[in-house]
């Protein structure tokens, strides 16, 4: 089974968990993801990127932000609890090569999936420029781990509470303008960030990879819920991705599709919050 071996709260809504999964730990490569459920009868299947793995411990690390009912339920699980369903590693691994200089841009929770990719790129001998961004200081994760991989490290927040007060696209643009152009940009974060990173690098003709986290059900190519327009083609994120050429991805369509169930999801989340509050009240009263 998939026991939760370790749990840590990284920021207000962000959690890190190491979960027992020896086979996945052995097979996984940078860029791949898992799908898990907190209940295998009525629970939802949610995709999460593998942030790290240990073959010695036989575990994988996931980092997730509480955004809805399932992530909330997951955040309430404790060390020693077992996940009823965890499947992976899914998706195609990142293509790791020697590009010269690579810029890795991570926004918010996107720094988690970016970390193993940056690690692999560093190992492949690339010069690493790493930009980490978040809305504010509280939401920055893995700062030190990323710094350790970077030849050049830039931190920015939207509100200026840490690092430079800027959106990640500002330093990205400056880097693109340098004489020694990067050979590759990898941007992982909220869809809107990936969209604007891609728009930033496009005029400079710098290849830009993004990692998409769309709605998925099975994660093995069977449902097609994750499909995106990439250039003139329709691709499935689960089997053709999750990484694509950012200059080709139709982000507006992808964002609209991500919101397909927004209203239902909001209600379900609220309903669950109320249930938790009720349970807590009962505990207090008794």
């Amino acid at each position, binding site marked *: 089974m998939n026991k939760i071996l370790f749990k840590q709260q990284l920021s207000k809504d962000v959690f890190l968990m190491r979960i027992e999964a020896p*086979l*996945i730990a052995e*097979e996984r490569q940078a860029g791949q993801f898992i799908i898990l*459920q907190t*209940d*295998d*009868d*009525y*629970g*939802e*299947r949610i995709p999460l990127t593998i942030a790290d793995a240990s073959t010695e411990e036989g575990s994988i690390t996931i980092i997730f932000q509480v955004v809805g*009912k*399932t992530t909330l339920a997951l955040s309430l699980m404790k060390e020693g609890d077992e996940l*009823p*369903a*965890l*499947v*992976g*590693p*899914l998706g195609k691994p990142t293509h790791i090569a020697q590009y010269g200089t690579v810029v890795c841009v991570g926004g918010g929770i996107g720094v988690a999936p970016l970390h193993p990719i940056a690690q692999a790129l560093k190992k492949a001998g690339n010069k690493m420029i790493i930009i980490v961004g978040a809305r504010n200081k509280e939401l920055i994760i893995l700062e030190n781990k990323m710094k350790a991989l970077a030849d050049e490290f830039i931190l920015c927040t939207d509100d200026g509470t840490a690092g430079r007060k800027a959106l990640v696209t500002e330093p990205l643009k400056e880097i693109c303008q340098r004489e020694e152009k990067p050979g590759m940009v990898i941007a992982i974060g909220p869809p809107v960030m990936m969209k604007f990173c891609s728009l930033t690098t496009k005029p400079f003709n710098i290849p830009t990879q993004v990692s998409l986290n769309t709605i998925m*059900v*099975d994660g*093995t*190519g*069977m*449902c*097609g*819920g994750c*499909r*995106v*327009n990439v250039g003139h083609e*329709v691709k499935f994120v689960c*089997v053709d991705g999750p990484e694509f050429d950012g200059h080709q991805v*139709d982000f*507006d*369509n992808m964002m*609209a*599709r991500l*919101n*397909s*169930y927004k209203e*239902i*999801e909001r209600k*379900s989340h609220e309903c669950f919050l109320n249930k938790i509050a009720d349970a807590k009240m009962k505990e207090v009263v008794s």
Partner: protein
Amino acid sequence: MNTESKEVLSERAKELLVMYLEKAPTLKPKERAQIPAMEMPVQEPEERIHNLDEVALGYTMEEARVEALRCLQCVKRQCVDHCPIKIDIPRFIGQIASGEFQIAADIIKESSLLPAVCGRVCPQEVQCQSECTVGKAIKNMDKAVAIGRLERFVADWERMQGHVSIPEVKPETGKKVAVVGSGPAGLVVAADCRREGHHVTIFEALHKPGGVLRYGIPEFRLPNDIIDREVEVLAKMGVEFRMNYVVGRTRKLTDLIEKDGYDAVFVGTGAGLPLFMGIEGENLVGVFSANEYLTRANLMHAYEREKADTPIYPSKKVAVLGGGNVAMDSSRMAKRLGAEKVYVVYRRTETEMPARKEEVAHAKEEGIEFHFLQNAKRILGDENGKVKAIECLRYELGEPDSSGRRRPVEIPNSEFIMEVDTVIVAIGNGSNPLISQTTPDMKVTKRGNIVVDETQQTSMKRIFAGGDIVLGAATVILAMGEGRRAAAAINKMLAEESVKEM
């Protein structure tokens, strides 16, 4: 289809049974063929569109026995010849007629471990029942002996007794067989190999077993509970199930043999890659593959809105594109999930529709509207990227094509708008690419179907394949037939190796 309530049908069957049982021993074939065919009692349409319960309720004991009495016990057994897994049909039907239901169940189990499934979803009208002498004698093949319904009756009867007999398993051979995918083909291989005493592990990517039986076929045609029970029989025989295991990703196919010590592998990963039409607007919010729509509703329980975390799109007007059984399932599911209008849009006419007649009739009773000789040209969206309509074209039938069906030809300038908020694309499935992508040595066709020989062996040693991954999207029973053949080849190979080792 039905005009009578289940009570009326049941009362009539009781009277007929008393009458014919007396005469039975002396009935001439001609007289026997004149015994009225028993209708299948069903849930009333007005009632069933508000629930997910089974539509067809199943025969009562009397209905089953009267229907069984219609069988002529032909010497030339055309029905068996047309059954992909060669169930001994006349023999089990004979036992039903005598009221020996347990014996009937055991006879079916000699060939099939999934009678409750097959009895419900096999297209009997084009297989066993297609050559039935009774149907021919009365010149109405719709009234052939209802073999499928009788099979279902026996399986349900046995389950209702609370005791399901477990087939015998030979002494352990020490050989290991891996089955990839727990759909109909895989389940048959598991059963057949386990019976020979081999250790069998089924690897399933999803969190519940059954494959397309679980995620594809809706509760109202095949209740999940039935799949659970049939899977339970396999588990009791000692078959090991490993859920959440994607062969190709969690472990490479070849690793199962090289690292994990399996002596043979069967690949039955199905046709799980939804095809789209390639028309404008297909990625708008509100367009789904039938696979996704049905998986949400079936596997993920989205129809139980209060309990399930997986949402399903709140549709009012739905267009289902396609004319197969999956299109019928999707349209009827949409209706049950609260859609006010559901249209099935199909480019040919009702005659060419690949869906089973019975399913089409049920859909019509439930108020599904059929739009024949029409097809979507593009899907139109609103300013938020959500579906607001489809633009359709009208067609007429031209000359027959290679499949023998008359080819639909579009009528120029016949465009018109159909207002819908949801489009479900049910035009078929390609082969799932995961195994071929991750197993470069495996020989596949241009379409990604695994190439096998007459024993279901692939181009790779010790690896066999069958079902939709070989056939392309076909039927449950054909997949089971392939599974049976593959299991026979695996069992033969392992037996020969055991002899050599001795």
